């Protein structure tokens, strides 16, 4: 149903835009102005009224995908175990890790006594683009062992239905690899039921 409402709204917008362009062209003819120039200007103005942020959002989204997004492995679970002999065996983990929030961290999970999995979200001003950063951090040394940055364009919380043309992504690099390493750092030692 919401899709049909969106189609109705689009149809109405298209009809109004066509009317505005037609009126502008008629005015240009009567006043001996360039019909093409005024018609295109009116059409472009009507386009910008609703879609002014479409092209900038698309360009910036592509730029962030190319320059900011990525998946980094600084240390694998095996390398960490080799550097910290005997420690992994002393750790305990739960199937559903405890969740927490703290300043600067939107969402975090305590994986075990040494590792946390943290999420941070940053938004671009004016344009609806968000960068999501998640990392697994060794809490004793404050060292990041794996990290991923994802990019998404578009509104959220229901507003996306009124600006669906802005929706791009999510661009999430290393989906399988990140999950594999995350499980590796989570499941050190003994499971606590």
């Amino acid at each position, binding site marked *: *149903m*919401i*899709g*049909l409402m*969106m*189609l109705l709204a689009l149809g109405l917008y298209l009809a109004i835009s066509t009317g505005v362009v037609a009126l502008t062209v008629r005015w240009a003819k009567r006043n001996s102005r360039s019909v093409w120039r005024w018609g295109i200007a009116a059409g472009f103005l009507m386009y910008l009224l609703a879609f002014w942020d479409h092209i900038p959002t698309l360009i910036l989204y592509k730029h962030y995908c190319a320059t900011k997004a990525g998946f980094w492995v600084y240390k694998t679970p095996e390398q960490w175990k080799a550097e910290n002999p005997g420690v992994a065996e002393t750790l305990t983990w739960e*199937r*559903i*890790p405890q*969740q927490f*929030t703290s300043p600067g961290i939107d*969402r975090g*999970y305590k994986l075990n006594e040494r590792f946390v999995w943290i*999420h941070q*979200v940053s938004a671009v001003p004016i344009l609806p683009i*968000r*960068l*999501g950063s998640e990392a697994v951090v060794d809490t004793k040394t404050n060292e990041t062992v794996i990290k991923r940055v*994802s*990019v*998404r364009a*578009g509104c*959220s*919380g229901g507003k*996306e*239905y009124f*600006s*669906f*043309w802005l*929706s791009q992504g*999510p661009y*999430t690099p290393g*989906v*399988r690899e990140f*999950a*594999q390493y995350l499980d590796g750092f*989570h499941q050190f030692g003994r499971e606590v039921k």
Partner: protein
Amino acid sequence: MSDVGEFFDIATLAEASYVLFDKLTDFTDKKVLDALQNNIDFNGNFSATQAANFVAEWEVVSHQPNTDSGFSATLFKNKITGEYVYAARGTEPGNPMADIFYTDLGDIVVDGLAIGQIVDMYNDWQRINTSEGQSYQAARLDLLEDATGLLFAERSVVPGSVAGPYELSLEGKGDGFIC
């Protein structure tokens, strides 16, 4: 269960069906819990409390990501009662070509029903009800473009129904019927 409780569950499951579960490597509680809250990567819109309550009660059994027609559904299982709920997505703003133009405009407005998504739902249901490693009968929708096909469709249509420009056939059987 009270009506309010049932409506709450149905609304929650409908919301959860929009989560991009296909990007999860498995449906463990940890990953589902995070995906439900992770809007950037998984389209999740749950709060921490909502997600924790959901994971305590429901598990993801099967997920069909968006097909070409924009159909997507998830089968959930209640961990306490064993009840199954099959939740299908509605229109997704992030999938405008398939959902809004192909299905809403091309199918619902023009044909009167979302026939592409109905076929995909049938196939998903067949897949869910088939044991791993076994084959199942899937339906395929073909557009009848030549005059012979359309004439055949008009003649073989069931009395009282309307012949359309589509032929719906069950793959591998060859006993197609006209809708």
